[in-house]
């Protein structure tokens, strides 16, 4: 019966095996249920992350146009090379290999990667912004051979500026910094934003909206197909008030002169900026594709400080260009009339101290218009003394001096016209009447920015409206141009036309009557009104010691509007170390000539070959320094 017993045992053990098998398969089924159904969402996401990449498509920034619709700043295509760490097996190997392929320092690549280390790994880290074709070709070849599956080459729009033209006005763009990201909800790391100038002020309008491209990649990182593409929205197009021809005339003339400096030219009726320059300038294009460190440190350490926007951030003594403010104060306060005469013997005594006129021989009996024309110091000493510093401050402020202009550019600095209150609060000291005498001719503590001088001239030109200088004229968000109204005036005074005429007459004579100091700015057929001035850089004693040093020479000013009746243009030329105001007037001549040629429909004048500058420094006699400068012809 062993057979049957054995038979039974075999049957029993087979049953055990059956049960074991069923249990094993049930366990498998439950495991698959758990993975595929219970945890499906998690694994689905991991699978998507495996094979899908979202590549940002950078929106082109809005194009900038001039007032005639000419393109000022546009975009060009460039290639950026980035690492997507999500697909990186060994980041060190990638960095080493990539830096070899690109021919850049391994350390700098590592530094960039390190800076973005905490960001999500799917976000590309841009290593080279504006790659050369050779770099693109080298990387693409490696990508195809799957050596660098984690490298992405993308075509991106990059800002294109007209070289250094209007650099400080347009500003530049750069990668957003951490502080900017934390301050704005709509910015993310890696975005390109305006870092100065119009680019910064109107960044929100210019930026546009980035698009995205969702692609399928295989395990070696190669793109297989596009799943979805959201096209980027281009930033709004902006029309500026700037006139390209006038802007170019300013910079051409400055270039011929060899001076650094600043210029602001306005439409006096509404404050629209026709030209805006600060020199030396930098090339914003070098920022557009990520500035390299050596260029940056060169800009930062340059003694001429090219990044400094002299037009709105430089404060300088206005010198004789300040005299019209004193004149207007005297007239409006009823202290003088246009016929009011002062006898100038070449000097005058105030509060026991002798103040010299630049013309030691004296001007004799002189009225307001001629005092302006010949820049008689004694006349303005006298008027200023009668007014007192607070009244000068009041009227200077109403004309735009010593206050911010409110121009739509970042980081404008404020000048200063002193007052008794200011001195009390700032210096904790009483104002001495003797200090007023220096203030009367734009010296002492008076300091101004070039832009505020342009506003000052525009206000005199338009009859008392302190317009706000502005650059934005119209906006096009894709549905056509919409004009942007000029910003409200900062203040408005009704100047008696008769009184104003006396000042205007003097300014006209400066340029158009022999004996005036601004004859070099004369334009045949157009009544240019203007005033020269100079700003002493160091004291007379210091001058003697450092007489040969170029950067201790005086600054030259020329402020102007034209034509005398119904002015269409007003502005300032500030020639840093330009020695004489007349040199600034020579630059202004080319600007005005261009402006009127355009207005009259004449061919535009070519850039002057030679400005015939007067570079003689009045070193021989410190006392006669301003004499030469103010009467230069």
């Amino acid at each position: 019966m062993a057979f049957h017993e054995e038979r039974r045992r075999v049957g029993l053990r087979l049953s055990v095996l059956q049960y074991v098998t069923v249990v094993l398969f049930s366990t498998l089924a439950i495991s698959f249920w758990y993975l595929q159904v219970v945890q499906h969402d998690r694994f689905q996401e991991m699978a998507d992350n495996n094979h899908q990449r979202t590549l940002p498509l950078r929106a082109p920034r809005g194009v900038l146009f001039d007032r005639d619709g000419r393109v000022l700043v546009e975009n060009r295509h460039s290639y950026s090379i980035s690492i997507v760490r999500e697909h990186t097996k060994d980041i060190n190997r990638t960095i080493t290999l990539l830096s070899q392929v690109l021919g850049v320092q391994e350390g700098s690549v590592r530094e960039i990667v390190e800076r973005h280390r905490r960001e999500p790994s799917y976000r590309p880290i841009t290593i080279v912004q504006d790659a050369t074709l050779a770099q693109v070709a080298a990387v693409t070849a490696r990508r195809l051979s799957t050596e660098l599956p984690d490298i992405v080459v993308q075509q991106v729009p990059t800002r294109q500026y007209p070289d250094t033209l209007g650099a400080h006005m347009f500003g530049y763009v750069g990668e957003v910094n951490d502080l900017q990201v934390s301050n704005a909800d709509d910015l993310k790391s890696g975005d390109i934003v305006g870092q100065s100038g119009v680019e910064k002020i109107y960044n929100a309008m210019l930026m546009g909206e980035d698009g995205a491209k969702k692609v399928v990649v295989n395990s070696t990182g190669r793109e297989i197909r596009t799943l979805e593409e959201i096209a980027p929205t281009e930033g709004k197009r902006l029309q500026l008030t700037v006139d390209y021809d006038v802007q170019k005339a300013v910079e051409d003339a400055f270039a011929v002169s060899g001076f650094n400096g600043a210029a602001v030219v306005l439409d006096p009726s509404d404050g629209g900026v026709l030209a805006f320059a600060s020199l030396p300038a930098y090339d914003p294009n070098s920022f557009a594709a990520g500035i390299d460190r050596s260029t940056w440190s060169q800009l930062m350490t340059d003694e001429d400080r090219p990044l400094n926007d002299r037009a709105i951030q430089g404060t300088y003594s206005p010198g004789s260009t300040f005299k019209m403010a004193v004149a207007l104060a005297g007239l409006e306060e009823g202290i003088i009339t246009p016929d009011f005469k002062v006898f100038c013997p070449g000097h005058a005594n105030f509060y026991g101290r002798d103040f010299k006129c630049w013309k030691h021989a004296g001007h004799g009996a002189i009225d307001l218009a001629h005092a302006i024309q010949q820049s008689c110091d004694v006349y303005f000493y006298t008027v200023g003394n009668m007014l007192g510093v607070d009244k000068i401050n009041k009227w200077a402020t109403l004309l735009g001096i010593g206050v911010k202009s409110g121009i739509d550019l970042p980081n404008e600095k404020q000048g200063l016209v002193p007052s008794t209150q200011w001195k009390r609060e700032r210096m904790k000291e009483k104002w001495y009447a003797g200090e007023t005498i220096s203030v009367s001719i734009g010296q002492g503590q008076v300091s101004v920015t070039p832009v505020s001088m342009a506003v000052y001239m525009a206000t005199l030109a338009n009859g008392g409206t302190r317009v706000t200088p502005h650059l934005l004229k119209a906006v096009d968000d894709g549905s056509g141009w919409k004009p942007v109204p000029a910003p409200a005036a900062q203040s408005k005074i009704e100047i008696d036309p008769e009184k104003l005429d006396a000042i205007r007459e003097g300014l006209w004579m400066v340029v158009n009557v022999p004996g005036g100091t601004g004859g070099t700015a004369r334009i045949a057929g157009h009544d240019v009104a203007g005033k020269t001035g100079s700003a002493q850089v160091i004291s007379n004693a210091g001058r003697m010691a450092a007489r040969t040093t170029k950067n201790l020479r005086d600054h030259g000013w020329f402020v102007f509007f034209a034509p005398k009746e119904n002015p269409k243009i007003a502005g300032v030329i500030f020639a840093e170390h330009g020695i004489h105001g007349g040199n600034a007037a020579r630059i202004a001549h080319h600007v005005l000539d261009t402006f009127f040629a355009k207005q009259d429909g004449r061919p535009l004048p070519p850039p002057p070959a030679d400005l015939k500058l007067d570079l003689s420094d009045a070193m021989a006699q410190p006392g006669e320094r301003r004499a030469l400068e103010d009467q230069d012809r």
Partner: protein
Amino acid sequence: MFERRLYHHIDWALLIAMFALCALGVAMIFSTTSDPTRGNSHLYITQLYAIGLGSIAMVFTLTLDYRTFTDKSHLIYIGLLAILLYVLFLGTVQMGARRWIPIGGFNLQPSEFAKVGVALVLAKYFGENRGMPNWTDLAIAGGLTCLPLALIAREPDLGTAVTLIPVFLAVAYLAGMQMRILGYMALSLVLLAPVAWKFALKDYQKSRISTFIDPTQDAKGAGYQQIQARITVGSGGLTGKGYMQGTQGQLRFLPVAHNDFIFSVLAEEQGFAGVIVALGLYLFVILRSLEAARLAKDRLGSYLVLGVLASFTFQVVYNITMSAGLAPVKGLTLPLMSYGGSSMIATLAGFGLVLNVRMRRFTN
């Protein structure tokens, strides 16, 4: 020799289930390799040839009485050892292992046939001995198993070598091996494990095991396949991503998708529903074969069926577990579905014996 009435006793249900699995396999191979840009788009054709050859082999193992094979099993066994020795010294080297003999366009992998050979010889050995196997019987049977196992392990092909162990255990178990002996074996295995870890395992084998325990410690290296397998299966969901729509398999995130990980591809593209169908078919094949073992007219037949079934079941369960990322990655294919000619032919030949035993349950 082949009586007409035997034809009526062929287990058609088992045959249908097996060929359904083969068809599923071909479909999945086609799905992962048909991309004409990749150069191996012909693989499914090769697989179809293998199924054809396997069917011929099955007809052969089905036609002769299984006792004819067991009677000649010692010769088959010796021939097998000779071929394994030949492979070890003169085989074709691929991917660092010497496993193949080139025959015509085919690379024959003799180790696959070793499973059937060992099943035959063990069935014969235990079938001839009456009563419960004693220590001597077990030692001799163990030796018969270990000889080809060692040769295969030397190739090296540890995965295939290990599949011989279930053959021995299953047949010995059915032959009446006492349970405590099984207990001793399990105990000694546990005790030997640290020793094996220290001396016998190669570094890559150790890393496979350690990354199984924690795949994330080497997510881009050895743990990669395991994580990808789990993602592949998990992302399939209830109904799958659709035929040829699986991103993991199609985009090559999963390595050797047509081979070791074919079940993962099925799970991805056909979802849990497809998994249940495939699992059901395999379970049916196994239970139906156990039924054949039960119905066998003699012990020899039962042992033979179980010997063939043991390596099959072991491989199925292990591969499916691995394809879900739930077991260390081992080069073990999924019988009937994975791409591979030798495996297909050997498996079908083995099942020819299973059908044989059932078919001849009434003959003398």
